[in-house]
């Protein structure tokens, strides 16, 4: 029915364009897991990261590595301000979740308006041209951007995995995510862990916005729209599962890419919202895949002790 090369091309392009979505979903899910906050201020962080990169790359003509370094510092600074000046106050007051939602959403709006005032509402890109060199492999067009994006995303996720599983602070983050009060009793600084979480999320956001900006252009209100995919991915993947959120983001991107074969492109946006509705109603804890150790036979556990 469909040409294999078309399907492969859609698959490849879908995976490539999912890369920045995966990083954004991982960043959102990380803050949700550890800090237990639906961080809609991430849209503001995305805007700050993007326009910092824009100023460094396009206006100041700095090398990419230096621009990324500056963007990382600025975005981490903004993220830490959000946490220490904003969220910490509401935590101290034991404010309801609606307060966090209003604060983070309005902060993103504030950033959006400030960026619109400074940079205007014309689309801007991080690269002089959004196209990149490409080659044909097995009937599929593979661009240099595609390969760079995939490798960068895998590297970022690998680093995140190592930090969370193999480092002391990463394990502290997991402990604080489970029980902040008990972690505090064990001598962990919950405030420092929260700050570290936001810093890590900021790193992922900068990487994602760099990838996005070297392929497409953006206006100040774009990040708020991009946020919804990250929210749905975090829900679908499970609120405490970063890898799940990343895989869910990949799934959503592929779903939207392949949907063009069956539905008009104008209706593609509706898929995300329909999925959000279905996910909340039927999978509020995320889609749980059966684990290998859950299939262990109960008889083994009931075997008499030979000690």
């Amino acid at each position, binding site marked *: 029915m469909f040409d294999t090369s078309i399907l492969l091309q859609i698959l490849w392009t879908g995976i490539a364009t999912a890369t920045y979505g995966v990083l954004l979903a991982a960043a959102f899910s990380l803050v949700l897991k550890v800090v237990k906050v*639906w961080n809609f201020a991430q849209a503001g962080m995305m805007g700050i990261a993007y326009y910092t990169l824009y100023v460094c790359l396009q206006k100041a003509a700095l090398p990419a590595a230096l621009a990324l370094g500056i963007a990382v510092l600025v975005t981490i600074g903004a993220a830490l301000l959000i946490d220490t000046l904003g969220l910490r*106050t509401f935590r101290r*007051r034991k*404010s*309801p*979740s*609606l*307060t966090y*939602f*209003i*604060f983070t*959403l*309005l*902060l993103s*709006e*504030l950033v*959006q*308006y*400030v960026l*619109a*005032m400074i940079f*205007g*509402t014309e689309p801007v890109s991080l690269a002089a041209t959004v196209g990149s060199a490409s080659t044909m492999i097995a009937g599929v067009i593979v661009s240099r951007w595609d390969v760079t994006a995939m490798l960068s995303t895998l590297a970022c996720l690998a680093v995140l995995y190592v930090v969370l599983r193999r480092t002391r602070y990463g394990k502290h983050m997991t402990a604080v995510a489970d029980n902040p009060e008990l972690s505090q009793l064990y001598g962990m600084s919950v405030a420092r862990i929260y700050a570290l979480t936001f810093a890590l999320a900021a790193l992922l956001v900068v990487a994602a916005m760099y990838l996005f900006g070297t392929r497409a252009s953006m206006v100040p209100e774009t990040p*708020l729209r991009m946020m*919804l995919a990250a*929210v*749905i991915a975090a*829900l679908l993947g499970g609120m405490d599962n970063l890898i799940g959120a990343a895989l869910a983001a990949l799934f959503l991107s592929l779903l939207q890419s392949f949907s063009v074969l069956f539905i008009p492109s*104008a*209706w593609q*946006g*509706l898929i995300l*919202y*329909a999925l*959000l*509705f279905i996910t*909340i*109603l039927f999978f*509020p804890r995320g889609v749980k895949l059966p684990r290998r150790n859950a299939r262990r036979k109960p008889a083994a556990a009931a075997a008499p002790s030979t000690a």
Partner: protein
Amino acid sequence: MEYFVSLLVMIGLYVTLSSSFNLIIGYGGLISIAHPVFFALGAYTTGVLSVNTSLHPLVTIAAGGAVAALASFMLSLPSLRISGDYLLITSIGFQLGVIEIIKNLDFVGGASGLSGIPNIVETHRSLKFALALLLLAAAVVLFVRKLTRGPYGRAIRAMRDDELAFSALGRNAMNIKIAIFALGSGIAGVAGGLYAYYYQYLTPDQFEILQSAMILTMVVVGGMGSVFGPTVGAVLLIALPEAITFLNLPAEVMGPLRGIIFTALVIVFLFLRPQGLVAPRVAGEAQ
């Protein structure tokens, strides 16, 4: 003079929207921010009926309210299963989904909007609409006051404060949730009908997520769960950002600056006066 009258139109509109929203979120404790969707459904129903039929404006506006109230079932029924953060996120998805559908429906004008809504007032147009909306706003505020101070209001607050205990006493929380959603959404739909006749042009962008944030902040800044709080919040957050109009700044600066003032104001209020400008009448009314 025309400018001030149009400001009164906006105030009447947003007092109506924020008061009806306060019924759902402040008194009912149902954290949904999809209120602009019902406002949109009322506006579009009225707009489509007025363009394609010769029905009386009162009938089309009533139809807008009825459609919005019926559509509220799509959100109130899921709310029976979920609450809190999940209901909040669901309502975001519901709103964006409905707006996306509107953008792709040709008979409502799609993304380019619905035009050709007839003019129903020949003379002193803005003044008459301002009066109508202010009267509607006053009626809604008084209605909310009467409803919440009576036995039904006590039932709503009891359900909000402890749904389990409420149900254990043999009361039906489901009916109250559905009724609150329908009432609040129906009122928003009626406001939408008046909005459609005033502006005579509707686009989906007028009802996006930022509209939700605006109405929500009016309720929160004014005082959630208080009768007059949303009124105070609406007046403050409509009037204050408009103060810069007299600075005669370029249009490309005016729009973002207005947004900056609005969002900054709300953030300041969240820190300095989190309970809102008008506290609820009785301490137990606060959420």
